């Protein structure tokens, strides 16, 4: 049945098989080199466009359009002294569709107040009268809804309150209570209108004022660039890693006051953590008594707090969300603390 040649072939095949097995067993297993000291080169590639209208460094210290030259400023803001010692503060707000740069080379079709995200900061003293002349130059119905006391007609939240494209509305109310508040659009779908960038900071100073300080505004936000329900870019004041590229200059020992708000969509919570220092936190800024002495605060959607601190040492200090995913997606910055003797340009604009 089985001829000789065939038997030889059988033997050869088996011998080859055994030889192969031997080869495989004897061949040295390639060891994977685990000794690595490389680091991930985190951050965004490239630089932000230089001709962008919105500069987070300017935004940091701008309120009531004080970043504009006087003639230009008058188009958007006027203040008038009233007989009772308070002020009438009038603002001209325009809802506009605007392409904004949120990471170098990455552009987002935002819905904005006055072409910027966050919108212009409103700052008044307790008891002042605030009047907002709002015109919708956008493509969807929008409103301006303020946190703080106001009458129902000024709430800007019900469908009857929605201002259609091309239409106007004037919001008026007294600035109270003192603290750190927000304003934002309340058109539906609410989530979309907020995610697209229609929000800003509204500060009410107490009548007696606060101790002079190096003040700055930080609004934590995020952008879902591919509209899949998850943010692709996180930041404080819109541009990812901006304050890493342009560290915020402060002086050692000076009082630093940070107005922090959280307007991130799609994530229930956000936080700010400042390295190597501790601060007093005043939740919602509605009390002059600090709540906690800490180096991190968590803020839910729409929550805000005032932080007061003095940097102990000179040098570079990081600040970021302690939701580390957010920080590596853009919500990270640096403080550059300089000696108080160092001459440095006064960033506070009056």
């Amino acid at each position, binding site marked *: 049945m089985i001829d000789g040649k065939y038997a*030889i072939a059988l033997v050869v095949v088996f011998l080859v098989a055994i030889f192969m097995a031997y080869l495989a067993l004897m*061949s040295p297993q390639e060891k*994977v080199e685990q000794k690595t000291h490389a680091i991930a080169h985190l951050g965004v590639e490239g630089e932000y466009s230089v001709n962008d209208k919105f500069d987070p460094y300017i935004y940091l210290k701008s309120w009531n359009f004080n970043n504009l030259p006087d003639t230009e400023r008058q188009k958007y803001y006027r203040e008038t002294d009233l007989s009772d010692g308070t002020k009438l503060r009038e603002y001209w707000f325009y809802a506009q569709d605007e392409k904004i740069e949120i990471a170098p080379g990455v552009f987002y079709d935002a819905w904005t107040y006055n072409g910027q995200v966050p919108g212009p900061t409103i700052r008044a003293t307790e008891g002042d009268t605030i009047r907002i002349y709002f015109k919708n130059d956008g493509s969807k119905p929008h409103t301006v809804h303020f946190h703080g006391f106001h009458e129902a007609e000024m709430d800007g939240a019900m469908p009857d309150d929605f201002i259609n494209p091309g239409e106007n509305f004037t919001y008026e109310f007294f600035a109270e209570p003192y603290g750190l508040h927000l304003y934002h659009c309340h058109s539906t779908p609410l989530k979309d209108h907020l995610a697209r960038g229609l929000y800003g900071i509204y500060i009410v100073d107490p009548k007696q004022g606060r101790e002079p300080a190096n003040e700055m505004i930080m609004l934590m936000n995020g952008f879902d660039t591919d509209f899949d329900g998850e943010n692709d870019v996180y930041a404080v004041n819109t541009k990812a890693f901006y304050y890493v590229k342009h560290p915020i200059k402060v002086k050692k020992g000076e009082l630093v006051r940070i107005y922090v708000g959280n307007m991130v969509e799609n994530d229930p919570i956000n936080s700010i953590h400042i390295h190597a220092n501790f601060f007093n936190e005043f939740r919602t800024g509605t009390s002059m008594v600090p709540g906690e002495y800490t180096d991190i605060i968590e803020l839910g959607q729409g929550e805000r707090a005032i932080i007061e601190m003095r940097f102990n040492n000179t040098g570079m200090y990081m600040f970021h969300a302690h939701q580390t995913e957010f920080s590596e997606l853009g919500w990270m910055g640096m403080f550059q603390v300089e000696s108080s003797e160092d001459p440095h340009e006064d960033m506070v604009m009056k």
Partner: protein
Amino acid sequence: MKLPNILAGIFPIILLGVLIGIFLAFGPIGLLKTGFPPVESISFEKVTLEQDVIIIEIINDGPDSVTISQVLVNDAYNLFKTDKQTLNHLERTTIRIDYPWAEGLPLVISVLTDDGLKFEKDIPIATKTPELNLSYLTTFAILGMYVGVMPVFLGLLWLPFLRTLSRRWYDFFLSFTVGLLVFLAIDAFKEAIGLTSQVALVFQGVAVLAIGFFLTLFTLTAISERASIDVTKKGVTEHALRLSYMIALGIGVHNLGEGLAIGSAYSIGEIALGSLLVIGFMMHNLTEGIAIVAPIARQQESQIKHLIQLGLLAGAPTIIGAWIGAFAFSNLAALFFLAVGAGAILHVVVEITKHMKKEDGAIIFTFTNVLGFVVGLLVMYLTGLFVA
């Protein structure tokens, strides 16, 4: 009268050209362009993992240009280097990312365009991409030997056993072979269809699949139709041997695709080849040997030369496939080879049934044969459990 005929032949084409000219000059192109946002699309063609470095090759397979603005690794922005950030239709670029990726862990690489669209590449298990050197060539040759060549040769050793069988059980094993081959064809289709979503949209994976499949099936059929006239004169022995070679060729093309899949999956880190997987492939491919020798089992003398050639024809392409897959992989080529393999195998199925009909007269669908076919499918299914 010939010249006017040619003119008549190309006249519609000339008219089409004129029509396109009119459309470009006066047509509503502006309307089409402004009405919709740009259609951005990027495909990842290759991912190379080196020590602390990730290199990706991408192609713009959408109609409009795409600008790569940022790159993320595992959901974190990372610095990167590339020669070209804006890609026109079908342009490619290579992006280099310094990143200390971890061996054996998942890796997600995302590319963010200037419009904020995100394109992701998932690597389930990151592993260092093999470099083209002798050590890796040897490794993959040994792997190919184990997975392809040795099992096929072992399967050939069933020849003496098949020789002892009566005609009825011989037909059983031919049917068994048909079952194996049909399973392999379906498997190849499954793999190929899976790949259609991996190739860039513009390359139309499904069309490549259809072309590869029908081109092979019909060309081989035409060849054997012509050849069968000569063979009939030479007798049944020649016919059986020719059939064995055809089966070996079909399985060889299939194994080339299998080798490609193994090599590429290994090189792009989609699987780390476990020993169980290799054993699974070995058992799976053992059955291919039976398929090859079944037609010649009825012949008394079979030369060793032919057996070795048959085994090499069926098994060796695994090694070549693994090499190509590991070092010069392209989803499109793999897709094409799988389709060609499916066509070749189905052609063999047709040939075997013809062969059975020629030897036994009219009846093919006897219970014995149906049982053989079903057992063939089941054996492939059971050995396949180790591969999945």
